[in-house]
């Protein structure tokens, strides 16, 4: 009798572990589908960043970006003139900034912002969410589902994310939390747009933060196009030559 009980318990826990792994797998697959809907794996894009300040002032930046794979992003500032020619590179959690006058890349962090405003560097050089986060759990919402994400390690900008997505795996809203549980910022994904090549996704990301009352930043996608790149485009030696990719 005791043996039967032990076997039953073992089977029960094995089933539980299997089910947990299965659901986690399903949720992680959902996250990968969200990533795929947001951006092709390899692409070029043009964006406008608008930072709005409490006194009503605005700062605008026009940016050309390229991405390859899960975690390689490079970016070139096209406007304003005072920023033109600056480039940034992200390889996983490594980030660099190249200023033409300085003539060499310097390391920057995901926590700071090359533009100022509410978006930090990890928001501006966003890599696939599945590259940085594991899914802890999920629940259904009115319009789709909510994923609870946990950073894979401490180098990731936010410790936890709460992500709202529609039934067809298009992200609607993300809340970003520190390890202490404090809400750092909210990202609203708005205005779905057909960018061609099967890319239908929100064209505007707005962000605001309880830490920066009265500040608001927007990222407007003007163009997204799938494109293949050599790995060597994503090296610090190439940072001064990203402009050549626009030709």
């Amino acid at each position, binding site marked *: 009798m005791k043996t039967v009980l032990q076997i039953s318990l073992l089977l029960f826990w094995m089933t539980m572990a299997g089910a947990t792994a299965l659901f986690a797998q399903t949720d992680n697959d959902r996250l990968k589908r969200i990533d795929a809907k947001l951006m092709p794996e390899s692409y070029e894009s*043009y964006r*406008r960043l608008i930072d709005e*300040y*409490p*006194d009503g*002032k605005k*700062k*605008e930046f*026009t940016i050309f970006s390229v991405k390859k794979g899960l975690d390689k992003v490079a970016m070139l500032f*096209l*406007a*304003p*003139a*005072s920023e*033109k*020619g600056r480039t940034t590179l992200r*390889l*996983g*959690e*490594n980030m660099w900034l190249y*200023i*033409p*006058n*300085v*003539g*060499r890349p*310097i*390391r920057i*962090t*995901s*926590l*700071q912002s090359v533009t*100022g405003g509410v978006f930090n560097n990890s928001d501006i050089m966003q890599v696939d969410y599945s590259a940085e986060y594991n899914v802890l759990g999920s629940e259904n919402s009115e319009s789709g589902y909510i994923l609870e994400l946990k950073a894979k390690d*401490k*180098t990731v*900008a936010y410790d936890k994310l709460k992500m709202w997505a529609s039934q067809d795996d298009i992200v609607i809203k993300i809340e970003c939390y520190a390890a202490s549980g404090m809400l750092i910022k909210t990202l609203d994904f708005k205005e779905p747009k057909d960018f061609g090549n099967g890319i239908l996704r929100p064209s505007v990301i707005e962000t605001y933060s309880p830490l920066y009352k009265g500040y608001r930043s927007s990222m407007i996608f*003007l*163009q997204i196009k799938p494109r293949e790149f*050599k*790995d*060597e485009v*994503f*090296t*610090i*030696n*190439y940072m001064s*030559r990203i*402009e*050549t990719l*626009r*030709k």
Partner: protein
Amino acid sequence: MKMLGFLLLVLTSTIAHAKDDSCDIFSVEPANEKLELSGSFDVDYSIYWSRKESPLYQLQYHNQDLSDILTSYPLEFYLDGNYQTKDIGVHFKTYSEYTTDNQVDFSLFELYGSLNLFDSSFLLLGKKMYNWGKGYAFNPVGYVNPKKDPENPELAHAGVVSMNFEYSKSFQVSWIQNFAFDLIVLPSENVLNNMLSEIENTDLAAKLYFLLWDTDVDLMSYYYGNTSTANIGVDFSRNIIPSVEIHGELSFFINQPRYIISGGALKPQNIEGTSYLLGLRWLNPWNITTILEYYHNDAGLTVTEYGDYSTFLSDAVDSNISSTISDALNLSKTYFSGSALMQDYLYLKISWPEPFNLVDFAASAFIIYNINDSSLSIGIPLEYQPITNLEILFQPIFLIGNNGAEFGSKQYLGKMEIQASYYF
């Protein structure tokens, strides 16, 4: 007339660019293959508080009874041009400075052509500014760098005529992500008849770059043609936690020329030694960035040697002989210029963009501390950006130290620089 020419250059460049910018389509279409101009126009106004007891001041303004406060108001114009196709590019950067009608300087900082070669390799020919090393204020391994001003390390400088071949390779393994090789060939700067130089005086510089375990590592070497002088060095940079980056440079030099004053005359030496730098950059939760660096250079002057140099300048002043004064001034400019003549320095810079939610402001402060003689330079740059592309800089700098110490013997007690820069 020269002022008119200077203004014409500024106006034509900015108007040409304004026409380009009126068309916003550039932002979403591939850039056309055309010459693109950009740059900045700077209006400077600087006030200097003279240190009249300084030997350097007395040499510079010998027998001139000047006011205690001097001013300068140069106009500066940087013009960059880029013509880029998919694989070939031509780039130039010029610097023009107008001081008076009799003093208009034009410098070609950069002019080079570039070519994307096969398999992630790249060739560059012409005059180019390089910047090796990871240090912010000092670069012991900056063998090909222009002389850096620690008071303004981000200022553009003239490059060197060179041929640069570069090869990059990425890897899909966890411990090494990138590798790059740089070879720079530098013809001799000693040109005969403004045209020819001797091939054996060609210098060679090489650098290997690795991104290893999320750490930037460079190994570099510089060989001076037709001499036994050589440098070899290593640098690194790594984020130990997201908010803290550490960096370092170590350079060994062999047969490095060094100049001291001995017996009242210039004495060249060749030495072997090391130079190194250790630094960190820390971003705190209030978005304040702190850079701290320690720099050592065996080739720098000791306190005694700097004292000998100061005595040499004082003796030249005391001689009251024009030719001696002129020679001493020339020797000072040729062999003892720069703002880090001695062996050990600490550099600290604290930067705070948008302090107290003042959106258009950026405040910073820096200290360059000479450990050997306890003199220091303190600067407090304050930037204000009232509209897009217009920056106004207020920068007071104070030079503090005993008479005879490095910063205490400069011509000026301090200065206040006000600079308006318009970018186009």
